[in-house]
């Protein structure tokens, strides 16, 4: 009977990556990077999207092979040709997109790829009991017999961490672990990380959030454009310094938000109900109003009805009840075109699916909606590519979009520039209501800053802005009022003055606010 076999903790005193280079066709993704982490240390790997953080770590985990450079474990060169080798050497990784099989249970996911203590038969009971032991030790509550698809995102992450520990990880890579968590869950994660630290585990914490670096790490390495900018002890770091290292120039961290006076109500939802993709109640009676000249932020963990909310307003999803008014006109049950023509602009969450066609050129994407309108089409029939080209050139210049020209296929642009093009297209119509869903997800700091300033500009112009975002910092920085969505309901609306991250975080986890100031 080996059910009580202790989890064998391997030990890595020091991991050192030296002169690592990785080339992808046409890109130098990682350019001679040195990086090291020690036992009992939390080392932040900070950088923007595309800086090479994930690529570097995928090489450490054996998913990619470096073109040059060596990985040293405790002074000897290590051969990490596959994740199998990495796991054998005591390296674990919690991926940004969880590597869990939805149809399998927690225990099955943990047992996957491991030798069974019962030889050619699975020993799921043994796995489950050892898993319970481990989950108690790290306060990571998980039921081993539940299939993954039934778990919330935060719980899935717990499974990923537990699994890495179960496999005896002495070095754990966490790729953007907080991206999917509520502030409360982030606190729990940090508790686990500190626990791991005292157990001598070396942790690499990939992030682009500055305050997390300052809160939990011992050292920080900043990457930019595939190169290492510097490695410094965290106690020597400040937000401003880190941001400057990431971007290469000073960055605005707080926006100036001038007082604006409110215009008429541009959007009004009353008790709106709708089904989600799976045919369940996605919106369970949402009421909300947005006036011209204000930004209303929708906070919440993803999957709590935000997507359905945006789609219902823009006419992309049928309602099951309630009414929606735009500029005082009832648009309930109206088509997307009808809503669009009332001056509603929409920056969709899935920009490459719902917002643009990646095989089309910049110019074609720019006129995606107005392709049949003057001046882009003569008489609504013949395209006028001259006018299209001119308009797109103008937008490229005004919105500082980095592209060789209007004829470049959209897929050749970076995420930030694609988003700027969509923003340009939507704002060029001078909308009365702007729905911006996750407008800066996966967008670099410079473009994020630019997009934020544009949203504030729209607010000053008198546009009603509905900002849907999972990034609480973004919500706090831009909104006048903040509505928190939880399980298809708005469980509270607070004004930005007086709202704290802690309070909103608690609401995102479902806590109803006592003193509600709507």
């Amino acid at each position, binding site marked *: 009977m080996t059910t009580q076999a202790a989890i064998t903790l391997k030990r890595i005193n020091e991991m050192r990556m030296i002169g690592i280079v990785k080339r992808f066709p046409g890109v130098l993704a990682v350019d001679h990077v040195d990086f090291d982490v020690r036992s009992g240390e939390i080392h932040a790997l900070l950088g923007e999207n595309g800086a090479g953080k994930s690529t570097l770590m995928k090489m450490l985990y054996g*998913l990619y092979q470096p073109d040059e450079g060596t990985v040293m474990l405790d002074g000897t060169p290590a051969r990490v040709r*596959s994740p199998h080798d990495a796991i054998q050497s005591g390296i674990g990784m919690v991926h940004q997109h969880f590597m869990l099989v*939805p149809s399998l249970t927690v225990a*099955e996911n943990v047992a996957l790829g491991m030798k069974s203590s019962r030889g*050619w038969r699975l020993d799921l009971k043994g796995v489950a009991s050892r898993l319970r032991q481990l989950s108690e030790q790290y306060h990571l509550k998980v039921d081993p017999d539940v299939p993954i698809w039934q778990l919330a995102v935060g719980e899935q992450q717990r499974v990923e961490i537990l699994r890495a520990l179960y496999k005896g990880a002495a070095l754990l890579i966490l790729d953007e672990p907080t991206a999917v968590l509520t502030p409360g869950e982030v606190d729990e994660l940090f508790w686990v990380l500190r626990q791991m630290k005292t157990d001598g585990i070396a942790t690499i914490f990939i992030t682009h959030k500055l305050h997390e670096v300052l809160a939990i790490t011992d050292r920080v390495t900043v990457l930019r454009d595939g190169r290492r900018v510097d490695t410094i002890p965290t106690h020597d770091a400040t937000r401003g310094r880190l941001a400057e290292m990431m971007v290469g120039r000073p960055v605005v961290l707080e926006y100036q938000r001038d007082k604006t006076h409110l215009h008429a109500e541009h959007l009004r939802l009353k008790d709106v109900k709708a089904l989600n993709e799976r045919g369940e109640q996605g919106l369970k009676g949402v009421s909300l109003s947005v006036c011209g000249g204000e930004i209303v932020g929708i906070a919440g963990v993803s999957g709590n009805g935000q997507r359905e909310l945006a789609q219902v307003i823009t006419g992309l999803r049928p309602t099951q009840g309630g009414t929606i008014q735009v500029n005082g006109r009832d648009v309930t049950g109206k088509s997307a075109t009808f809503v669009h023509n009332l001056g509603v602009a929409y920056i969709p969450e899935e920009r490459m699916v719902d917002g643009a066609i990646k095989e089309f050129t910049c110019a074609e994407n720019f006129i995606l909606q107005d392709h049949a309108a003057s001046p882009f089409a003569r008489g609504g029939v013949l395209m006028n590519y001259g006018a299209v080209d001119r308009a797109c050139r103008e937008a490229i210049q005004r919105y500082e979009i980095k592209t060789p020209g209007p004829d470049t296929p959209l897929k050749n642009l970076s995420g930030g520039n694609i988003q700027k093009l969509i923003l340009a297209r939507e704002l060029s119509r001078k909308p009365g209501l702007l729905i911006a869903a996750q407008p800066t997800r996966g967008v670099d700091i410079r473009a994020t800053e630019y997009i934020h300033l544009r949203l504030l500009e729209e607010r000053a112009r008198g546009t009603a802005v509905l900002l849907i975002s999972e990034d609480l910092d973004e919500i706090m920085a831009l909104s006048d009022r903040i509505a928190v969505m939880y399980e298809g309901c708005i469980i509270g609306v607070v004004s930005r003055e007086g709202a704290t991250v802690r309070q909103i975080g608690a609401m995102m986890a479902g806590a109803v606010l006592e003193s509600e100031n709507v």
Partner: protein
Amino acid sequence: MIESILAPSVFASAIRLATPYVFASVGEMFGQRSGVLNLGVDGIMLMGAFFSYYVALLTGNLLLALLAAVLVGALMGLAMAFISVTLKAEQGISGIGVYLFGLGMSELLFQKLVGTPRSVDGFPRVAIPILSDIQFLSLGEIFFNHNLLVYVAFALIPIAAFILNRTPFGLMIRAVGQHPEAADAMGVSVVRVRYITVIIGGILAGVAGASLSTALLKVFQQNLTSGLGFIAVALVYFGRWRPFGVLAGALLFSFVNALQLQISALGIDVPSEFAVMAPYVITIIALVFASKQTEKPTALTKPFDRGG
């Protein structure tokens, strides 16, 4: 009337007719559970059918005949795995290629090596002592008086279920078919697992062919299977990727088949074309109405590429 249509011999023949379907479908199920759709089953069956028939004709040794089918099935499975896993070719197309190869090759070899159809002795009936004497509901006749391959086919079902659900390898198969990236990240070799399952599928398709040519019909002719392998692929869908589901489908299909044979044997006035169509039509109807809640492998037909 009804009694003669539903005679015990009809049930017994349904059990026998189910054999090639069971072998081929269980094999195909392994491949599909790991994410590889092999449409070449029918071609592999034809090759297995021919080689086992030919070896039986030459040597009279049934074990060698079966071995020949296993070998040729394994080789064609290997070819399919190489094309679809290593070369990452479109699975639907490469499967059709494998089918057409098997169809043409088996006929060519038959023409060159044998010429005119001659029957072989093939697998004899093996009545299981005591059990085959059960008179109650004619159970003995229906279940326990068949050739060896029939018993093997039915034993295969629980074994396949056990492998899939109770062994580390089965867990790997399910993971690779559902989320290959996750399996890869956990140190499972997606490529290796898929090669193994597709080769298992090839072997079982070869044996399915052997059961047809050396056990059931005891003869080979051009296109002996007449699309039976494609039905086997459909039965995997029908059975919702579960061994016992696949068995149920195979039995339903072979029962309708046997019934149709019986009806025409009794000289009942049903247009024979209609009777031949019936099993296929019923299968399609059953497929349409089969439960939509499924364990369908989400990575089915998708080649795996780790990148970098």
